[in-house]
């Protein structure tokens, strides 16, 4: 592989997100303003929005979710940035990870010095079946969807192949969900700002209030195996193996590295970037790994000159619990077939060997699909700057990584960050 370098250094000097959740009263643009406002407040030395030269906005499908196309100029307008060029970037759930890459390239090329990268999605307007249909358009509508595949179905199939090959059980998947909710319970921006234990308490209270038998679970795993309270969605994936339907937005400010110190006391440099595409799921040689993730991460590691062992924390694309396990293998944190063991042993816990998804991940924080890639960067930004509050990890985070997947892995984009 030819080693690629950026034309010049690029740094993140601001990062913000809206609340994630279901907000019937808010449109996408309202969520984007929230994210922009928080991003602006995070710039240590202040930001005059007039310094922003261009916008790159990740958005999967406002067309179907909100019947609104052409979203980028609307976002530019709502934060006062017309007539600057505004570009919408779509690569399914990797849309804003890829928008970040476009922003990086725009700055690295010298075309722009200061750009805004955003991610937006408002999913909760539609009933569940239509959300399912909309997400399914990120698969192959000719050759996969007529078979009855849904997104939970695709990842359920990946899980079936993984379990058959490595002997993993659904309990390993449940461990990922429990761990990510523990982290999300410490993230006030999370859609599910609550641990599985907290959800159990709420369910018991609700049953008691309605005069129904109060369920007694001996522990979190017993709850996770309860067919009524954690119903099957697409075997072996249950409700708490799946990321939720979320409304949310994220905003990042990128500048050329030579300007970074005029915006920030602690800029985060982007030192590695990789992206790859792949065929649809049936046409791949492996179903237990995402080739695009291996490819994109190799590019990013090479560019950054770091190894998986150097990465202190990672935000990975846990749209489903199995996806996190596979990601930790594809990124080189664990050997193929060992990711589920690592999850069971707690190695990916917040203060484990390799903390993964300290934000709560897509599972607990929420997954507004086009916003998730940019929102991952916000956790990296906070952890690297020591601003993650109760969920701050117990070690210095000098190197971090984000891994954002589109569809079943037909797109993957990976970035590596260093604190300067």
């Amino acid at each position, binding site marked *: 592989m030819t080693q690629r370098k950026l034309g010049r250094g690029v740094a993140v000097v601001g990062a913000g997100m809206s609340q994630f959740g279901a907000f019937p009263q808010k449109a996408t643009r309202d969520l984007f303003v929230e994210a922009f406002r928080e991003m602006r407040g995070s710039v240590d030395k202040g930001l005059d929005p007039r310094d922003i030269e261009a916008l790159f906005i990740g958005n999967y499908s406002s067309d179907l979710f909100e019947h609104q196309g052409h979203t980028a100029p609307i976002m530019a307008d709502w934060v006062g940035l017309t007539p600057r060029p505004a570009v919408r970037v779509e690569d399914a759930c990797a849309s804003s990870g890829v928008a970040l890459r476009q922003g990086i390239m725009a700055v690295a090329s010298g075309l722009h010095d200061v750009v805004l990268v955003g991610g937006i999605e408002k999913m909760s307007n539609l009933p569940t079946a239509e959300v399912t249909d909309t997400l399914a358009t990120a698969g192959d509508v000719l050759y996969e969807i007529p078979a009855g595949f849904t997104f939970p*179905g695709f990842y359920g199939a990946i899980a079936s*192949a993984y379990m058959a090959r490595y002997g993993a059980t659904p309990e390993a998947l449940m461990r990922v969900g429990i761990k990510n909710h523990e982290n999300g319970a410490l993230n006030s921006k999370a859609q599910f700002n609550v641990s599985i234990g907290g959800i159990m308490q709420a369910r018991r209270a609700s049953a008691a209030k309605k005069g129904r038998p109060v369920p007694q679970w001996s522990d979190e795993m017993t709850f996770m195996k309860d067919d009524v309270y954690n119903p099957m969605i*697409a075997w072996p994936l249950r409700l708490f193996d799946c990321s939720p339907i979320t409304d949310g937005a994220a905003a990042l400010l990128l500048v050329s590295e030579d300007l970074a110190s005029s915006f920030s006391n602690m800029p985060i440099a982007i030192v590695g970037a990789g992206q790859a595409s792949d065929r649809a799921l049936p*046409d791949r040689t492996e179903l237990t790994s995402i080739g695009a993730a291996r490819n994109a991460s190799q590019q990013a590691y090479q560019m950054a000159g770091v190894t998986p062992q150097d990465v202190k924390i990672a935000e990975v694309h846990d749209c489903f619990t199995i996806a996190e396990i596979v990601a930790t293998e594809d990124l080189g944190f664990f050997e193929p077939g060992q990711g589920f063991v690592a999850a069971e042993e707690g190695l990916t816990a917040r203060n484990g060997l390799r903390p993964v998804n300290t934000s709560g991940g897509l599972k607990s924080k929420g997954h507004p699909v086009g916003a998730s890639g940019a929102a991952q960067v916000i956790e990296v930004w906070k952890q690297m700057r020591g601003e993650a509050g109760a969920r701050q990890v117990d070690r210095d985070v000098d190197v971090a990584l984000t891994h954002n997947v589109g569809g079943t892995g037909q797109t993957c984009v990976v970035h590596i960050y260093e604190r300067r």
Partner: protein
Amino acid sequence: MATESFTYADFTGWLAEHKLMGARCQSCGALYAEARPMCPDCFSDDMAWEQLSGHGKLAAFTTVYIAPTAMIEAGYGRENPYVTGIVALDEGPSISGQVVGVDVKDARQVAVGMPLQATFLTRGEGDAQRTFLAFEPAD
């Protein structure tokens, strides 16, 4: 020069005749279980249709309880889940298809590696009638 058409409409036309047809590259020999007008392995335009046996093994599967609209219209859902999967065909390529003829409530009936054979499902009426590729346990 491509002399024949290799479109999805052709592929579904074959399905309507209860034939699973693949496209084989006449230059490098790669075989696809899809209608492909050019070979993505060697860039050749010299493709030819080839009938596939429809026999293969289940490579990955799931049982879907939260169904998309099209499957809800076909009668599926929480109370009537269905199995779908990826089948590695004996000829090499893999393809997606619903797995029928199994008791979806009995997990032991479906397993990665089980031998399957193609079957064809017809749904819809009149102009909306379509034939879908599916698989059932091999005889």
